[in-house]
Each structure stands twice: as C-alpha cells, then as structure tokens.
C-alpha cells in the first residue's frame, strides 16, 4: 500500500496497481483534462493537455521535492510518494496554451457539429482556455472526407490525438486509419482503396474527443443535450455489451458502449450499435388483435387480460415458446403463468439465431455468432422448472403429435425472418395460438391472438450472457402506443397489482431458482457472475455426496 499526493489530497494505491497521474487524481475527485490518453489504448502523451507538476515526497523526512518542469500526467506513474500538483498557475497556463494552440486552426463550427455539448475541446475551453483569441483570424471551412460506410471525417476539427488510429491498430488490428502529412498539415486519413471497414468502426466516433469523426447514422439527427441516456444491454448477440441508450421523447437516436471491464471494456460492435432501427420501424405492430374467422379485429388490452385465462384453460394442454429475447423476469413470469393454468405445460426455448462464427478481435473483444441476448438465462429457468423442456425443433415435433391445444409463442426478434411458412404450418389447427412479436410473420398471420410486444429499448430486466454474467437493463423509452412490453402483460395476466416491477420479479426468481441465487443481493451496475454461484453449488453438491 502506498500513498500518492494530489493537490495535497492523499490517495491510497495498492502495491500491484499501476495507475498514472490522471487515474490517481480521479480517485481524489480531481479531473485532469486529457485528449490523447484513453485507458483502453496505448499511451502516447502527445496532446499535452494533461500537463501537471510532479515531485516526490521523501518517506523519511516528509520533504517534498518538485521537479522543475511540467510532465504529462498520463505518462507519469503514480507510485508511493509521488506528488502531483494540478492547480498551480503554471499548470493552468499550460492548459490554456494547449487549448489555445488547438483552436488556432479549428473551424469552431459548433453550431453544426454533432459533438457540440459533449466535446472536450468545447468543455476544456470554457474550463481552462484563454479568455480571448490571440492568433490571427482566418476564414475557415470544414472539409469532410469519407472514412468508410459508417464514419465521416471533418478534417479540420481533428486535434490529432490519434485515438482513432490507435484503436484500429490495437483493438481491431485492422489499421485502416493513419496520419498523413507532417506538422500542422497533419490529417487523419485512410489508404486509398482501404476504407474504415471493420466491424467495430463506430467506436472511433466515441473515442474522438472532438467532432472530427462523425457517425453517419447519427449525423445531424439530434443535439446531444436534448437526449437522455439510459443504461442498457445490447441484445444483438450473446456477448451482452453494456450500452447507453440515448433517446429524446421516446425515440432512440444513438447507442453507445458503456464501460464494463468484464464484458466489452469500452467497446461495442457496429451490428449492435446500429441495430436499433427496428425499434422505430414503420411496420412495427401496434394494437392487439383477435382472429375472428379469417379476419382480425382490434381489441383492447383489457380484453386480452380478461379473456385469456378462460381461453387457455378451455384449450387444455399448453405449450410455451420462451424467446431468448425475453428478460429473465419476463420469462419467469410467462412460465409461471402457463404453468398456473396447465401445471404440465410444455416449455421450449425459442429459436436462437446463429449467424456465421464468433469473431474475436486481437484485444479479445468478441462478436458472438449467437444473435440473442438471453439463451443462457432462459436455459437456467427451463432447467429449474423442468417438466417437458424442448428445443424449438423438438417443440415442432411435439406439435406434429397434436397433443398440444394451445401455444404461446413469445418472440421479439429484430426481423420477422425467424419463422417461415413451413414452420408456421406446424402451428395450424390449435385452439389457441398466441404470438407476441414486433413484426408480422407467417406465424403471426396464423395467430388467434396477435399481441404486439416490446423491443429491447422498452424492456426492463436482466439477461445472462455467454459467460453466465447476469446484467440488468433499464428501459429507455415507452413502447409505441398500442404495444405492451411482455413483462407488463404477464404481470397483468398474473393479476398482480399496479405496474410491472422487474426488480421485484428478479428477487422472486432469484429466491426460487438456484442458478440465480446470487441475484438476491441485487445486481451491480457491471453485472453479476453467476458462475461463482454454480461453483459454490457444485462444491456443496460434492460435499453432500
């Protein structure tokens, strides 16, 4: 254990910790401004925004000796006895000079720049900048250049921090981005014929501390200060990247990765990042409908909750397809519901789309081929509830046997292609077929009840990712008028009072399902490793044997 002094504040550091000045200061609640440094990338110490004064404290005498020059905090190790001063006049002058230097050739087109409002150049200018411009005034234009399909470079807004270049070299290993020219003529560019085209390209936009890299998907869509940010989990694949869902008035404009060292570090893939447009698709289903003859009539949700139980009870044997897009809480409630009507209800895991193979990047980030967020979670529930538990393929065979009279299918896939005419035909002849989904599909068009469900941005609850980590997402927006998020419907079907409360359901499920026991103590923001529980469980079993 050692102690680092930052502006007189004592910061404890463990012996095996390797912190730099920025990280040590952060522990003391002091923000050292920085552009080029990023915890996930190599240190280049080139922007020089993080300059501080540094010295050492003699452990014997307690005397502090400062070195005469300033040092970049990002490159300076914070060891026992290291002293940092971040608020002296000298440091303030250094910051003001760097900020001034960066603005000499900057277009300052904030009014039309997407980064405005979350731009370090802007923020640091207000906090640390010179009060007025001293360099010559020159006309600016803000030339643009395509980096690839996802990203546009606003050439002159760049502050040359090289974060984006390092990202493509160190994280994706694709090295598309580079620096051309020299001195103040430097620019970021790609090699002709080799555009920025990796599957994590969007991250460079988050990394860019200014508005130089623009996300084509987000460009000119929304001013950032109008948006609210909600902690979510990406449902694009079984990795379960932690994300922020950013919305304004129930419309999602952007997804961004949220740091989680155990799962996605600081990154997310493009498929996940841009995979939210279905939420606002024109053809999304709204308003529950009931089949009458060969027509569908619009009904009220209250009608659904009022008549469903009787219909299902009348049908007899029930089967339920539990989608890997449902949260733990929703799946738990759905199982509870069908088993409350038919204690021998057959349960099946819904289709789990697998596309291609897992793609692992040099730094370890992996895009999984399994394109669903919660297969593991559903499997844990099915294992617990037991009875007849089937795969989706076997469930179709079960249908062939004609023993089931009512089937509840939950879905929530981003596209309608998860079933086709052949699959749908197997569901023919049932007394009751309930389909809960976002889009119409062959199966949807056979349903007795068409129940529009929620998308990931509207759901609240937990998913268990490929490594058995349980992570909780908050809902970001309300579903479109006429759609009910699954959890809400199940809550009502189970005749629970008021609004759906996912927290309560999780506690209930955790108390009941051994694999989820750990969640009883609550779920930390970075998730909960359920394997610890399994190990403990295995040990206990071994002990009892």
């Amino acid at each position, binding site marked *: 254990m050692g102690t680092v002094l930052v502006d007189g504040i004592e910061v404890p550091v463990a012996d095996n910790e390797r912190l730099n000045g920025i990280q040590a200061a952060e522990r003391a609640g002091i923000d050292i401004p920085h552009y080029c440094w990023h915890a996930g990338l190599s240190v*280049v110490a080139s922007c020089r925004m993080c300059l501080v004064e540094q010295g050492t404290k003699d452990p014997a005498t307690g005397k502090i000796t400062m070195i005469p020059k300033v040092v970049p905090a990002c490159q300076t190790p914070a060891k026992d006895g290291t002293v940092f001063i971040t608020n002296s006049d000298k440091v303030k002058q250094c910051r003001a000079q760097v900020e001034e230097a960066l603005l000499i050739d900057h277009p300052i087109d904030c009014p039309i720049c997407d980064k405005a409002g979350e731009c370090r150049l802007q923020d640091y200018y207000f906090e640390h900048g010179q009060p007025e411009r001293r360099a010559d005034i020159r006309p600016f234009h803000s030339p643009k250049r395509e980096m690839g399909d996802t990203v546009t470079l606003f050439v002159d807004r760049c502050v040359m921090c090289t974060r984006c270049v390092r990202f493509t070299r160190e994280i994706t290993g694709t090295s598309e981005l580079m620096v051309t020219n020299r001195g103040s003529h430097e620019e970021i560019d790609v090699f002709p014929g080799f555009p920025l085209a990796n599957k994590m390209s969007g991250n460079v936009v988050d990394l860019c501390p200014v508005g130089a890299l623009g996300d084509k998907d987000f460009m000119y869509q929304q001013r950032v200060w109008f948006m609210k940010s909600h902690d979510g989990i990406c449902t694009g694949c079984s990795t379960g990247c932690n994300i922020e869902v950013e919305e304004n008035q129930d419309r999602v404009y952007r997804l961004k990765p949220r740091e989680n060292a155990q799962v996605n570090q600081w990154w997310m893939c493009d498929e996940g990042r841009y995979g939210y447009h279905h939420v606002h698709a024109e053809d999304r289903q709204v308003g529950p409908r009931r089949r009458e003859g060969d027509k569908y009539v619009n009904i009220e949700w209250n009608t659904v909750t009022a008549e469903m139980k009787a219909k299902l009870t009348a049908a007899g044997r029930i089967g339920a397809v539990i989608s890997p897009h449902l949260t733990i809480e929703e799946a738990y409630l759905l199982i509870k519901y069908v088993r409350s009507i038919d204690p021998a209800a057959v349960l099946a895991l819904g289709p789990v789309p697998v596309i291609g193979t897992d793609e692992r990047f040099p730094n370890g980030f992996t895009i999984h081929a399994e394109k669903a967020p919660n297969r593991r979670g559903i499997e844990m529930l099915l294992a617990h509830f037991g009875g007849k538990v089937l795969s989706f393929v076997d469930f179709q065979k079960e249908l062939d046997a004609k023993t089931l009279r009512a089937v509840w299918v939950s879905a929530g896939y981003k596209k309608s292609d998860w079933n086709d005419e052949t699959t749908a035909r197997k569901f023919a002849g049932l007394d009751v077929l309930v389909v809960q989904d976002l889009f119409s599909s062959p199966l949807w068009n056979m349903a007795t009840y068409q129940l529009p469900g929620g998308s990931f941005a509207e759901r609240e609850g937990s998913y268990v990712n490929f490594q058995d980590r349980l992570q909780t997402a908050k809902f970001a927006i309300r579903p479109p008028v006429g759609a009910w998020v699954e959890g809400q419907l199940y809550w009502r079907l189970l005749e629970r009072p008021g609004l759906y409360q996912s927290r309560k359901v999780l506690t209930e499920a955790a108390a009941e399902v051994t694999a989820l026991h750990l969640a009883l103590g609550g779920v930390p923001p970075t998730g909960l490793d359920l394997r610890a529980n399994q190990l403990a469980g295995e040990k206990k079993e071994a002990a009892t044997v």
Partner: protein
Amino acid sequence: MAKFEPVLMANMHKADSHTLKVYEAGGGYRGLRKALKEMTPDQVTETVKASGLRGRGGAGFPTGLKWTFLPKNHPGPIYMCINADESEPGTFNNRYLMELDPHQVIEGIILSCYATKAVTAYLYIRVEYPLSRRRLQSAIDECYAAGLLGKNILGTSFSLDIFIHVGAAAYICGEETGLIESLEGKRAWPRIKPPFPAIEGVFRKPTVVNNIETAACVTQIIDRGADWFKTIGVPADPKNPRDPGSYGPKLYCLSGHVNKPGCYEAPLGITCRELINEYGEGIWKGRKGKAAIPGGISMGLLTEAEFDTPLDFAGPGKVGCLGLGTAAVVVMDETVNMVDFLHNSCRFFAHESCGQCTPCREGTHWSLTMLERIKAGKGRLKDLDLLLEIGDSIGIIPGTTICGLSDGAAWPIKNAIRKFRGDFEEYIKRTNPNGYMVTEPVPALLQLGAH
C-alpha cells in the same frame, strides 16, 4: 594559438582517401586489431569513458556512460544505430567523414559494437547524401572482403554486420527515437521516454544511437589512447562536479558570410571569433559581423559581442544559447536583418515538426504565420510578445513536448527577439506604421509559401 594538427581530417587530403588501401596505409584499423587482440569489450568501454568523449550528434552526452546504460548480461540481440541523418541546418561534418574517410567511421562503429556487444549496426543515412552512401557501402564491402566485417572478424569470435538504411529525408529522423521508428518502417514520431533506447530501442531491443563523428572519435581514442584525447579540448570545471568537460578534436562547420567557409577541425573550445578569423579568413566583403549560429540553427544566436564565446559543450549555454549542438557555425554580417533570419528559422521548424505534440505542432506553425505577417509589413509589437511566449513554453526543457526539436525551434525565437529586439521593433514600426500598436487579433495573411 598554436596551429592544431588535424586528427579526424588527417587522412582526407590524400588521393583515394576513402579506400581501404589508403586508410590502412595511414595506420587505419590498427586500433581495431589492437582492441580485438588485447582488450575486452569492457576495457574498450572503459577507455572511451576515460577519454571523456561526448557525443557529437548534438546533445553531447558522454559516450562511454551511454554504453553502460545497456542491460548487463542481456541475451541479445543488442543493436547499434549510427546516426547519419545530419539535417541540422548548417551542419555537414558527418558528410566530410563519410565521403572522404568512411573507414575511419566504420572502424569506430566496429569498435563501438565490440564494446557494447552489438551484433548488428544500422547506419541510418539521409537520402540527400548519395556520395556518402556509395562511399560507405563500398567501404563496408571492402571490410567484408578483408574480414573486418561479417563472421569472426579478424579471426576472433566477434561478428558484426553493418546495414545502411536510407531515410526519406526528414529532420525528425535524426532524433534518436524518431530514427528508430523510421528504421522499423514507421512514421518517425519520436517515442516517449522511458524506456530509453538503451533498454528498449530498435525492435524493442537494447540499442545505442551514436553519431558518425562520435564513431570516428572512438577510432582515434582506441588507437591513440584516452590520455591523448584528454590533452585536447577544455578540461572539466573543477568547481562544477557535473561538468564532464569538452575533450578532443571537433569538426566545426563554418558557413555564412565568411571568406572561406568549410569544415575545419579544431580543438573543442576554440572561440567563435577564432574560428571565423583563423579558419574562415574573416567576415566577407570587409563587413562587420552581426550574429552567428553557434552550433546549428537549433542552438540560437550569438551576438557579435559574444563571438569570443568558446565553442565547447559549456560555452554557448553561458550566453543564453541552447548548447554547442553540432558545432555548425553560420555567420551573419551586419547587413542581415534578424526578421529574415527568424522567418527562415521558423519556416524550417514548422516544416519539420513531426506534428505529434500539440505545443510543437501548433507553436511552430503559429510562429511562422506571425513571422510571415511581420515580413509582409503587417507586424505588431504584440507579435513579439506572443513569439516569446511560444519560445518560452515549447520544448522538453519546460516539459511540454516529447522531443528536443521544439527546444530547437524555441531557441532561435528567444535569442533573436531578446538579443535583437531593436531589429524587430524597427522593422515592424517602419513597415506597419499604422498598425504596429494593434493588440486585437488581425486577419491572417494567406499562407503563401508556408509549409
């Protein structure tokens, strides 16, 4: 002052001085034969250390000491980089050595590698030196043929390869870690230190970077002994325990407004005035001197009154210059306007800044735009203060940048304006009588001709 007997240049006047035959006839490779037979690598290092030799590449770091920074008992490989990027304006002494006495350099490289246990030496040379390159290559070829390079040199267990690597001509490739990056095939962006090259250099292996002239000095030290080397130059100041002294001969490059510009060998410590008068035969056209660059443009300026400054490692620093640098003296006569000088200097550094660090990239560029505006008759007195602020704030000495290029950019600004402020004020007031007092930002000139 007694006429000094050249050592490093002793061979250069001979016909075919660049060939192995002529070099050996003059006693060449005698030191190497002796060292390989009689001395251990550590003894060679100790001899170089004892000689007080300081690097000739610009920083003047004690050579023997630098070698001892290599990790002990390293499994290898250890690399030697010989810096022949020679791009400091006014500097051409390495070129003399490479063109007219390449074997003296190669002998020094072999000795340095023997001392440091380096197995490969990369000679990094700028592309603008085609003759140097050819002469070095043919000298290297001769050495391989004569068993002086390659496997088991002179029948010993010591082996060494030397490769010439041609740089694409950028000043920053001379900075040792810029050189290393460039050698590895990357953009010559100087590395942050630590780790220093001695610990992690080329291909992340321990590396020594030495200048061409440093290598030539090593040849002479091993041949003639450390004591001989110490008879030349300026001894360490006994009152300053941190002064390593300035020993040995030095190749001074003299250019500018003198009657006889050229590369001259003199003992370290010769004054600027002696160099101008005794070697350069005085200022040209019967004019008076006004200023001189003491050791390459990065080092700043001496005024005429400071011409008596000894050009040793400590001298120029005492009158506010950055140091001795490459000992390239550029003389300016009384007709020179310092505005022109500084404009030229700023243009060079704005062009050569590698662009990595914000203060250097933007500071060099900003100072150039101001100088261009001043030259165009739109200067303001305030510009001088701004220039000084840039000069005082960029560099590794204040700690705001990664490499020393920006200190080199800063010094001409600081020295020119502090030592010749009258020149600047007069020029600005004369050419911009209505606007010189303005303090608000003014419109920029179109950046014509600027790089």
